[in-house]
């Protein structure tokens, strides 16, 4: 755990719930985007791989939302949280909800996010909250596979044909402005860092940046300049792409209130 303090008191349940909700919404929304590739990947191996990543992310989302809902009083289930919250109640970072675009953008986003997940889950394994630590312990192994897959393709697209290079660079520039939000300080995370329950984003960022810059160099892609930093996902502010995603995801569940599936 980074910035370990002597004040290792148990973190407040509400803070853990908020934190887990944000990370759970991240992976749920990203899984939703990835599954849009079903039966339309460039080749069958990628159908398998993208579905495999989506499946891992849904599994992580179920764990994180169950944890978040379980710390509330009265509690909510994973499905209460996934299907019965409106757009402004979702706490995912905006990068997760962006339209997947072409394969270049999908891979660029996956690489940047998975490269963040690896040090995040790795740090979270040492959390003073045993439930968060257990979820992170499984997730870090999955994230290593995800980053490996995305790196594999980013390098081939960047150092492939002129067209693939152009598309990979464009995809990278589409999503790059949204990475800032992943490292933004917020009061909940700061309290959890102090309690030893979460890794410090300020420590993760340079680890992430080093990993990303090494792969972009290998891919012969340029690190995009940061022109603006959209933000607000963790406070419920989302892009226009998010509403339709949510409407589609929630429609059937909400059409049959109280039903079991």
């Amino acid at each position, binding site marked *: 755990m980074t910035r370990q303090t002597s004040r290792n008191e148990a973190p407040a349940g509400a803070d853990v719930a908020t934190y887990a909700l944000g990370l759970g919404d991240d992976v*749920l929304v990203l*899984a*939703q985007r990835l*599954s*849009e590739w*079903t*039966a*339309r*990947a*460039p*080749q*069958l*191996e*990628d*159908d*398998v*791989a993208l*579905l*495999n990543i*989506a*499946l891992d992310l*849904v*599994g992580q*989302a*179920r764990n994180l*939302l169950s944890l978040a809902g379980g710390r509330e009083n009265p509690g909510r289930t*994973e*499905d209460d949280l*996934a*299907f019965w919250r409106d757009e402004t109640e979702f706490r995912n970072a905006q990068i997760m909800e962006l339209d997947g675009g*072409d*394969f270049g953008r999908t891979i660029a986003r996956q690489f940047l996010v998975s490269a963040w997940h690896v040090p995040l889950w790795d740090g979270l394994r040492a959390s003073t909250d045993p439930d968060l630590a257990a979820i992170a312990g499984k997730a870090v192994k999955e994230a290593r596979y995800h980053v*490996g*897959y995305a790196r*594999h*393709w980013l*390098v*081939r*697209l960047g*150092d*492939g*044909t002129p*067209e*693939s290079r152009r*598309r990979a660079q464009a995809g990278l520039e589409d999503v790059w402005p949204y990475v800032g939000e992943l490292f933004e300080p917020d009061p909940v995370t700061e309290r959890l860092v102090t309690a030893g329950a979460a890794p410090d984003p300020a420590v993760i960022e340079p680890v992430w940046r080093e990993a990303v810059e090494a792969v972009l160099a290998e891919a012969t892609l340029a690190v995009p300049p940061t022109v603006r930093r959209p933000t607000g996902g963790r406070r419920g502010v989302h892009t226009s792409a998010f509403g339709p995603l949510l409407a*589609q*995801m929630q*429609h*059937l*569940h909400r059409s*049959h209130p*109280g*039903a*079991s*599936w």
Partner: protein
Amino acid sequence: MDVTTDERDFDRLVSADERVEPRDWMPEGYRRTLIRQIAQHAHSEIIGMQPEGNWIARAPSLRRKAILIAKVQDEAGHGLYLYGAAETLGVERADLLELLHTGRQKYSAAFNYPTPTWADVAAIGWLGDGAAIMNQVPLTRCSYGPYARAMTRVCKEESFHQRQGFEAMAVLCAGTPAQKQMAQDALDRWWWPVLMLFGPSDEASAHSARSMAWGIKRFSNDELRQRFVDATVPQADHLGLRIPDPDLRLEADGHYRFTPVDWNEFADAISGNGPCSRERIAHRVDAHEDGAWVRAAAQAYADKHGDRAARGAAA
């Protein structure tokens, strides 16, 4: 090489119920029959991803979403094993896909029907994967080794899918009146297309007899269809669902008599004019064309770097 010796060796392998392997001599008709059958099977796996994939985004619970993603991923994996088995017969996956995309090879016509409700996904698992098991378990003893081994892996997963589909159906049947109606409607939609999936009746099947002699096929289409009906009717009873066949009845011999499939009704679907035929192929062709630049990138990278994984598949 003495051709008659080759033929004798081949006949001996088949009649002794041993496996023919890619390095073994085989009659050209045997090779062609296998390529056609394995390719059609592989195409069915990947086209089948479309009607089910249609519901991943809308799955009604996170548990069902995970189960459905895992299932569709399995089907993509089945496509991979099967194209791999076909490649041992000297054809390339890319060429087989080209034949699919240009309508020169077929896939299971059942996938030319739409999945308008969530219950259709449950019904495909219960009935479609149930039928697949009936068809494919005998293929684990097929005379061609790579196909038989691919089927052994595939059948384990198909039976898992069948149980999950039945369970999803059972939850609907125990649910609200709207859910139960959704389940019944889906059974009504899928019953006949699934019976059709076993292929034409024995008298009408051009390839059956020869495939039996070669040890590719073990049971006739009608025998497999009968087995499926016998296994499935009690399951429908258990669910409290009605099979859409007014003449269905249990005979003293323990088998269900059922109305013969009306092949006229399926003529369009089978000849590629089903409700979704154009859409399924157009979707496949679009995906393939959209991915061309990605595959070209992998090839260019491989050429530059001497990459062994020329296809670009992740390690």
